[in-house]
């Protein structure tokens, strides 16, 4: 899943390691979320949003693909 975690994280001047420590996960998890290779649970999404001071839709919202059936 595509998301804007990387942009939001850089905006608040946090490294992956710092963000991970604030939330209580490993740096690898943050890295995988940013790459879109891991789907975080809603709880983790919210934790990320609280930490970078953004709303859920600002970071995780993706438009529905038009060519989908």
């Amino acid at each position, binding site marked *: 899943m595509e998301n804007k975690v990387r942009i939001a994280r850089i905006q608040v001047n946090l490294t992956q390691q710092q963000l991970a420590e604030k939330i*209580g*996960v*490993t740096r*690898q*998890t943050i890295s*995988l979320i940013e790459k879109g290779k*891991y789907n*975080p*649970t809603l*709880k*983790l999404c919210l934790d990320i949003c609280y930490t970078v001071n953004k709303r859920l839709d600002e970071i995780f919202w993706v438009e529905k693909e038009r060519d989908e059936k």
Partner: protein
Amino acid sequence: MKKIRDERLILKNLQNTRIAYLIQTVGILGILGYDLVTKGLDGMRENPLWLAFMITTVISAYLSMSISADHENNKKSPKKSLSISLFVLVIISTIVGFFVTFTEGFTIIDGVIMGGILFICGLVPLIYIYYLRTKRQDENFVE
């Protein structure tokens, strides 16, 4: 050692456990299969691994019941399903009890005991699935 709080790692851990469980089951089946070939059915059942295997199978069957209760469509009411299953169970236990009674070397008491055991063994999962279905219905109504 620190407790793992990362949800991704917890999930990964569970997946690893599943792989280990699969390999373990294959190993147990291999050993039991070897016993079956070399020592016969009774020899296989003397192996304590047989008990471990049966307990795990029963537990996994009960656990998967809660999944199938959620998976099935809930058009029929749980009470109706329970009464149908009870009816079938009573018929099966009666038939088995009946045949045991008329087998040579067995008395009518053996038949009753055999039918009773079969009935009780079948009743437990029926009640459990009834409980699961009614619980799920209650959850659906709270909306």
